């Protein structure tokens, strides 16, 4: 889905809604961005089911991506699953070990992952500050 908002930013908005336990109107977001956040919420609902998360988490390549279309590129489901759903994995779990290995092997996925994390954190901080005001 083409959108102006990055996945990291959108996930930060969704994370705040999930934490608040309700949907919110974000007046600073245009219609397209709001639709995107809503679509991520729909994905989050599906991924919360066991089947949803398992399907995503087992798709991670064991080595670096071999094609131009890397695993994490535009992979909203992965980031919804990892940043919002499956946050409680211990760092020694099989999936985490595989994730570390893949990101060490795949420069493009590493860069993508870092950008999402960066955006997610920065927007999260912004929203927290705004909520405190």
């Amino acid at each position, binding site marked *: 889905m083409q959108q102006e908002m990055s996945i990291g930013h959108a996930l930060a908005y969704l994370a705040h809604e999930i934490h608040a336990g309700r949907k919110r109107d974000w007046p600073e977001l245009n219609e397209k961005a709001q639709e995107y956040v809503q679509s991520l919420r729909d994905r989050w609902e599906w991924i919360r089911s066991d089947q949803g998360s398992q399907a995503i988490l087992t798709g991670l390549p064991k080595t670096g991506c071999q094609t131009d279309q890397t695993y994490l590129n535009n992979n909203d489901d992965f980031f919804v699953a*990892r940043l919002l759903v*499956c*946050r409680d994995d211990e*760092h020694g779990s099989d999936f985490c070990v595989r994730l570390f290995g893949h*990101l060490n092997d795949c*420069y493009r996925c590493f860069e993508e992952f*870092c950008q999402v994390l*960066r955006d*997610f954190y920065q927007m999260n901080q912004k929203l927290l500050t705004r909520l405190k005001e």
Partner: protein
Amino acid sequence: MNSGNKPSSGIDESVPSSKSDDGAFSNTPQSTQQHGEPPMHQFDHSFSLKELIPLCADPESEHYNHAWLEFTKRYKMFMYKVITRKCREFNIARLSLDFSETVNDIVFEVFFKLNIDHAKALQDFRAVDDERKFLAYIAIICERMTSRYIKKYVEDFVITGPPDLFRAYMNSITPDLSWAVYEDLVSDLREQAGQRKKNSERDIHILMLRRWAELSKQMILMHPCIASLSEHTLDVVVNRMGGPFKANKKDELS
């Protein structure tokens, strides 16, 4: 091979070599032949590649010095061009390396590589009737040696250099080169981790998040697979992983 800073062509330039009027080289008697080699007077023309390589490979040969002189005359400028171009791609000035000194050092290392073990690197080349293929072969050697030489400075820059300068450097080189540098660094970190397998991939990843991507510790702790660690642990991991690089730098300076 000569030692020292000046690039060496493997030639003992103290040995005089002069031509007589008929074009023959007079420092070697024409009647002297060793190992079935053609007499010297046949070398008043340019060697073919096929002639040149075996002569460069045999230090016992009386034509050895002349062969290396010819090799240098023919290929040195080409090697300089390839290495200079590669150094520009790496933007080595941003790594605080002196450009011409670095290029000279690498040219020296390439000649050394071509010369050692009876010029094994030259003898390994098979298509001796094809000058173009030989130039491509030399170019690959030059590029690899350049990458290997510069890589250690880049890695050191990643681990120990000021973060803003590192990011500026990475923005100044092509994405493909960034990719290659990333892979090399991870490979070296894995080699360094060695037998200590437990958590090694995690630790490498943490180091790259912190030093390569310059994520803050708070950002890193939003990572679902790292969230259970503390900021102190992140510091310990980064210092431990970067330790050997800092030790190497200390060795080089001492």
